[in-house]
């Protein structure tokens, strides 16, 4: 990419963003005070009813609240009210645990499936049926059997991130070029050594693509799972503010969820670039 193209793209991005803010601001302006309301009655009512304020907050409200949150990201006012930094920390920790568990199980299993046509055929119907199930559909079952909401959330992350990794690993392992395996065989390399020195490096880009898809899904699901289970996490924060119909805070949380999701994706994209090789 040339420098001038990058610059022009940045200018267009900023212009789009400003236009979006302007439209947002105009669309959410208040419609002026409502007529004929006694002052005593108005005192008991919210701003949407008295000043015709739009139910949707404007960009200025959101900016102000965001600044408030950024100044105190780690406060702790008791079990139901913690700073955004702490909430995000909880969510990331849950995603991390469930995701690692999925890595530990999906990659060896994927290898097995990719290397053995028999296992591949035998497990195929199970994988095909389990894969399309919405992770949240597991939630009631998890709560009922695991009997712990924190672990249930981690289980849901595990179950949603395991499939893309498993399938990509199997696909990558099965797709390693026959010549390379035959060369290894001619040199009488053992199965274990073959797996680690030939197949793993060859399949690594595909495996990492699967891992990148998984982390994206895991981050999508944790928000929904935490909204269901409650307690802590950014999903709980969204739910708690939704409970108070505080759309400002919900918008801030949406923005942060997007930001963290992008960061997680970028980290894995970097790692993928490291293991990619030219053919």
């Amino acid at each position, binding site marked *: 990419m040339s420098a001038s193209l990058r610059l022009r793209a940045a200018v267009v991005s900023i212009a789009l963003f400003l236009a979006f803010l302007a439209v947002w601001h105009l669309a959410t302006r208040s419609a002026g005070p409502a007529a*004929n309301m006694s002052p005593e009655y108005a005192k008991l*009512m*919210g701003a*949407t009813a008295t000043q015709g304020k739009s139910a949707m907050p404007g960009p200025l409200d959101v900016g102000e609240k965001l600044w408030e949150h950024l100044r105190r990201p780690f406060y702790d*006012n008791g*079990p139901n*009210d913690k700073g955004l930094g702490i909430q995000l920390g909880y969510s990331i920790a849950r995603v991390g645990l469930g995701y690692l568990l999925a890595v530990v199980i999906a990659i060896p299993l994927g290898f097995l499936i990719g290397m053995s046509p028999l296992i591949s055929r035998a497990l195929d119907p199970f994988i095909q049926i389990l894969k399309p199930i919405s992770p949240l559909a597991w939630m009631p079952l998890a709560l009922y059997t695991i009997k712990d909401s924190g672990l249930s959330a981690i289980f849901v992350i595990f179950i949603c991130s395991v499939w893309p990794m498993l399938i990509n690993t199997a696909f990558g392992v099965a797709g390693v070029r026959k010549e390379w395996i035959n060369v290894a065989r001619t040199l009488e390399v053992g199965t274990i050594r073959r797996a680690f020195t030939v197949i793993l490096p060859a399949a690594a880009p595909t495996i990492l693509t699967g891992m990148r898809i998984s982390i994206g899904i895991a981050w999508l699901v944790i928000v929904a799972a935490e909204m269901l289970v*409650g307690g802590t996490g950014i999903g709980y924060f969204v739910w*708690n503010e939704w409970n108070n119909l505080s759309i400002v805070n919900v918008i801030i949380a949406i923005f942060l969820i997007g930001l963290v999701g992008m960061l997680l994706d970028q980290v894995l994209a970097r790692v993928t670039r490291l293991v990619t090789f030219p053919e």
Partner: protein
Amino acid sequence: MAIFDDPFDAERDIAPACVCGQHRSAAEHEQATLQLRCEPAESEEKRYESVVASAVMRAVFPQDAARRAFLKSVGASTALAVLSQFFPLKMAAEAFADAGTPEKKDLKVGFIPITCATPIIMGAPLGFYARHGLNVDVVKTAGWAVIRDKTINKEYDASHMLAPMPIAISLGLGAQPIPFAVPAIENINGQGITLAIKHKDKRDPRNWKGMKFAIPFDYSMHNYLLRYYLAEHGLDPDTDVQLRAVPPPEMVANLRADNIDGFLAPDNICQRAIYDGVGFLHVLSKEIWDGHPCCSFAASREFIATAPNSFAALTRAIVDATAYASNAENRRQIAEAIAPANYINAPVTVLEQVLTGAYADGLGGIKTDPKRVDFDPFPWQSFAVWMLTQMKRWGQIKGDVDYKTVAEQVYLATDTRKLMHEMGLSPPATVYKSFSVMGRTFDPDKPDDYLAGFKIRKAS
């Protein structure tokens, strides 16, 4: 109604003047049965002191006549002073207050962020749990099904539940049967039917055919009251309208989005719809059944068996908090204490309107009803019997029901009465009472006759 059966009162009649023997006169008994509630003492220490002092006074003068003569000659305050000379009343009261060390001090109690949970929530910021030697975390929970599962899974030691839920769980309706018990009701009244502003000229329920209503949960007083209300106006709630279980916070958003026409919901949700200008209050639930229970404080039998002292201390804290909340003067302070994000997370104005009963009705008027929501801990077993009749009426229970056995097992009225006596409150003498719902009298001794009196019910 006298909270204490005061032995320092020389004027007190020795022979009981009323039917139940709890009150000084028949008039007082009348008033008490009308109110059926316990008023709080000025302070807890004072109350415990009075309990101990009364006991000592009775021990010193076991004969009523002799005690009366003594009181008449020296006066009550002198008698108390003399008594405290010989007997360390303060110390005894302290010892009495912390009866039984809790087996488990760090407890988790779940709640749903609505004003029904006021006593459970305020117990934390206002120190009611701490006063009874407990360290309680009150944990906000996403919905009724989640709170049920978390309590069954023992993540919570006890929970805020809708009054019919412990009955449903114990009977295994919508869950595996697990014995649960209710030591205290949280609130009475405090719900309402809220309609979308566009229906402001459609106040007659007979015109509501085809409308969509939201209720918080299937096993809720809200469900039974709304069905009852509709049926009394000739609508069959199963065929003429649509009822949907919707989590309370989503009710206001759904009302705004025109997905529902109204709801029978817990407060602060009704007031919140008004505050945001999307709905108006059609009727308070109080107008359907004045004094109806709504939410309960519930724990599993297992918890009660393994940690009886913790359970007793919890119940005492809840009863204390309930008594405090029932005093109208304290309501503003409570509204401020439970409004922050850590608790209910709602505007203080909304909570104040709910708790003080001076509220905007959504149509431009201000109404005042100090009993809009009220707090009374006594778990009347007749409440449970009534709920069972409605569960049967709407097909949630099939076949015969042993009303009283279920009621006695789940609603621990007898235990709570004992505990309230120990705390110096005077609970009602019976565990069943008759009441009237929309003019129809309910006799807890004849639930099946009551049930047979309804024309509109689910065919079983």
